[in-house]
């Protein structure tokens, strides 16, 4: 019951920003939002109303796969697909997720570090592994990858197979 109430509260807090709302599990609600609304949305749910806490930021590479009919080989179709950021907020059993879709050509989103200072590490992780630029994040030093890791190579992208392959282009 309390979980349901929390989810409904989250829905009412974010109704102005949500392009679509979805309940993937009984204790979860997902909000698809535009990237320009990320900061106002975080402000609305966390800073103003203290709905739970920011538990994690998941980055996804929703690559578009195509299957060759004759060879049955799966390859990436560069004409589609996108990156996605998932901001998971948890309050007891309830989980609210803000989903922000970003194109490969312009993977930029506002940093929310000035709202929640502890979020810096999550942003650094997504920046490094997925090549997402967090505009205004205070620290862009390497967090996880080695210092000599080549620039512009993002290992969690589906296109990344190995460093040797990346060097070949």
């Amino acid at each position, binding site marked *: 019951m309390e979980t349901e109430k929390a989810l409904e509260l989250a829905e009412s807090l974010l109704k102005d920003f949500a392009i679509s709302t979805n309940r993937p599990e009984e204790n979860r609600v997902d909000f698809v939002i535009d990237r320009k609304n990320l900061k106002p949305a975080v402000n609305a749910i966390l800073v103003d109303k203290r709905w739970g806490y920011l538990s994690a930021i*998941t980055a996804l590479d929703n690559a578009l796969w195509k299957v060759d009919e004759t060879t049955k080989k799966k390859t990436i179709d560069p004409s589609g697909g996108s990156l996605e950021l998932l901001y*998971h907020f948890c309050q*007891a059993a309830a989980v609210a997720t803000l989903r922000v879709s970003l194109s490969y050509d312009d993977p930029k989103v506002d940093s929310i570090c000035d709202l*929640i200072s*502890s979020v810096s590490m999550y942003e650094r992780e997504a920046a490094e592994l997925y090549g997402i630029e967090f505009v205004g994040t205070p620290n862009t030093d390497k967090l996880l990858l*080695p210092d000599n890791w080549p620039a512009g190579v993002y290992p969690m992208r589906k296109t990344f197979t190995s460093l040797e392959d990346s060097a070949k282009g």
Partner: protein
Amino acid sequence: MEPKTAPEKFIVPIGPQHPALKEPGHFEFTVEGEVVTNATARLGFVHRGMEKGAENRTWIQGLYLMERVCGICSHVHALAFALGVEKLAGVQAPPRAQAIRELVSELERIHSHLLWLGVAAHEGGFDTLFMFSWRDRETVMDLLETISGNRVNYSANVLGGVKIDISDKQADAIRKGMDFLEERTQHYLKVVTEDETFLGRTRNIGVMSFEQADFLGAIGPTGRASGVKRDVRVDSPYTAYNDFPVKLITHTHGDLEARFIVRIQELYESYRLVRELVDKMPTGDLSVKVPRRIPEGEVISRVEAPRGELLYFIKSNGSDTPERIKVRTPSLCNWSSVLVTAVGHNLADMPMILAGIDPCFSCNDRIVTVNRKTDSTQMDWEDLRQFGIEYYKWM
């Protein structure tokens, strides 16, 4: 000579490597005199690319891979993964398997909390406590070895249940072990709340207010020591925590002493739970069948690791390999919050404050260089630890 107007400001790097300890990390503390004014972290020295690795392996291989994310809390990783995959597949492990999963989780918590007690005592210069608590920890390590065959990476889980069972003989050994540890733990609680020299290092040190802990997302014993009522076992019970519930332990002070008290009181809860579990273990099968291909979908699986909430985001594309596994470990959350609260504390308190969150702690023994115009001092982690001990000796 011109008089200096700006205050001296130094950056003290700590870490990244100590071959004898578990997980390396690198911290940079900006100090003005004794007081820390900024703190940053650099991780990744043991980044193994497991999330990427999981995408190229089957679901079953992923279970073994995820169990190896952490050597101290290995079971909870496999558990979070297995629970998530089972949810996607639409199956549920049988009651006996759920109870055994909880039993191993609590035994793991006992070993982890006792390990932390030792490490934190060592950082505070109290090596007797360190040696005693690690000696006693062997009791629970032996129990884990008896039931699973391994001291770490117990591999108790399979997708759909567990592969170990608890015999009557093992149950007796577990009861005896809990009795012994409970008696010892009473002694530890007395030491950390009454020993004057130790209190000098923990009372009112590293205080994180409720407000900070709540907003910055501090979790686990670190958050609970500041009064934040967050425990996945209570908030969102998984495996058998509905039938064998746990009591939420919190404290209000938010200092290091409170973090000691919370963890020690959680030990009592774990002893009680372990006894109840072996006494009232449900009968029945140990596992159910899980399909090789997992239906398409996304799931969030949260469990309470010894250090706090562990979150898995699992996405399946309907094949026999995952599309994406995201792991958010509790230390990452707590590092973020502790680095913010480290500001304003004395450099001498840093070893204890860092150890206080029970990070899979390790970032030690690299050379620390304090650059000054006139002279330069080099300290390694051992020196800094000693510096902390000496600093407080004369307070």
